[in-house]
């Protein structure tokens, strides 16, 4: 699998506070839209949350704004799901911290197009 940046489990940068590298898997349509192949690796301020990871994703790939979270409300779009470390994080608050396995870099944060037919 190729990634758009080599993953490291974590890193700290001087000056602007600690960051964590979070691996993100996007559904095919959004990879095409963002012109990425494989996983996206993001630097997210510690402690990384669902919301901060998605904000970092949108910062890296502005074309994804409005496709995962609604523009105005910042709510998850109805047919998008978030999975990580075997858990469904779709219905928890955006402020929820990502699982340890994601923070360590062992597991990706996965954005999924829900099974909705069509």
């Amino acid at each position, binding site marked *: 699998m190729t990634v758009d940046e080599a993953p490291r489990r974590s890193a700290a940068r001087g000056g602007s506070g600690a960051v964590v590298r979070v691996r993100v898997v996007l559904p095919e*349509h959004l990879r095409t839209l963002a012109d990425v192949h494989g996983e996206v690796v993001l630097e997210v301020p510690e402690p990384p949350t669902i919301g901060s990871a998605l904000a970092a994703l949108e910062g890296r790939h502005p*074309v994804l704004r*409005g*496709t995962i979270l609604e523009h105005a409300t910042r709510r998850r*779009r*109805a047919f*998008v799901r978030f999975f990580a470390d075997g858990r469904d994080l779709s219905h928890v608050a955006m402020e929820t911290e990502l699982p340890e396995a994601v923070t360590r870099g062992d597991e990706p944060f996965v954005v999924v197009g829900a099974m909705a037919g069509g």
Partner: protein
Amino acid sequence: MSGVRVLVGTRKGAFIIMGDGKRDRWDVQGPLFPGWEVYHLKGSPADPNRIYASQSTGWFGQLIQRSNDGGANWTPVGNEFAYEGVAGTHQWYDGTAHPWEFKRVWHLEPALDDPDTVYAGVEDAALFRSTDGGTSWHELAGLRQHGSGAQWQPGAGGMCLHTIVLDPSRPQRMFIAISAAGVFRTDDGGATWHAMNRGLRSEGALPDPEADVGHCVHRIALHPSRPDVLYMQKHWDVMRSDDGGGAWSEVSGNLPSDFGFPIEVHAHEPETIYVVPIKSDSEHYPPEGKLRVYRSRTGGNHWEALTDGLPQENCFVNVLRDAMAVDRLEPCGIYFGTTGGQVYASADEGDHWTPIVRDLPAVLSVEVQSLP
């Protein structure tokens, strides 16, 4: 003319079909944006290489794509359609108040004189404008804030602003149509709007069949040489106005059904118009299983069936409101797409038809550019 470029939006992507000047050889390119619904693509009259496309899915929402090179390359541009101020409510199907919520862009209408200016008709019904090539969008909120707005309600396909008609002789005038609210006109560039529905009758659909608003207008069209003459395919009834929408009269005449979706005007003959009769509002297919385009050379009332090359048995497709278009070649060519994935073309004003592609996903829109 060197040829035509046919822009086809479908349920699962867009296609560009290039035709030569004779319109007998076709090259199908696509799908573009595969897997996404493309409700509409349209090229700028001021720069045919500038094309806008509305791309959406239920999963990932709305995108707007822009091409600066005739569709060879595309760039996603702005996709934030924020209603201005407090969005307010409109009527829901059950009569309750329902908050205005953006769902998708149905129609893109580039300005006549500026490739960077483009209008977007959206669901829930509102009109947006971009003056920077689609990068940012701003609502022309005077329409939604028309005094009747709280009474608008969705048609079966949603409460969509699906038609935008620009008046080439009066830059400040435009017409829009909403299902199911009706036709509105602005004479000040979109600041204020007037309902233009006098003469429409919606028996059985409205408690007052002649109400000012609430009519399910499916599409309107005009010829640029006579912008005061408007033609309309309403839910039921084909209508005509000779005074810029001030009053409408029925011109369904001898049509086998006056239900339908698209209506188009011949490029060179302002009294020649085309419709595709559909059996009924629940039976969305041609009467008798015969796919027939009807042409009137008298601006309505007297219609002739155009059938040569079209299936005349066992045809049960629909032709949606934005899925018919004309080119500007001589003689005028006319094109339409079906929910069965065929795109038919006639290079002789509708006398003879040929499928230029047969097996696309369901066709949502067809536009044609006549290339120099």
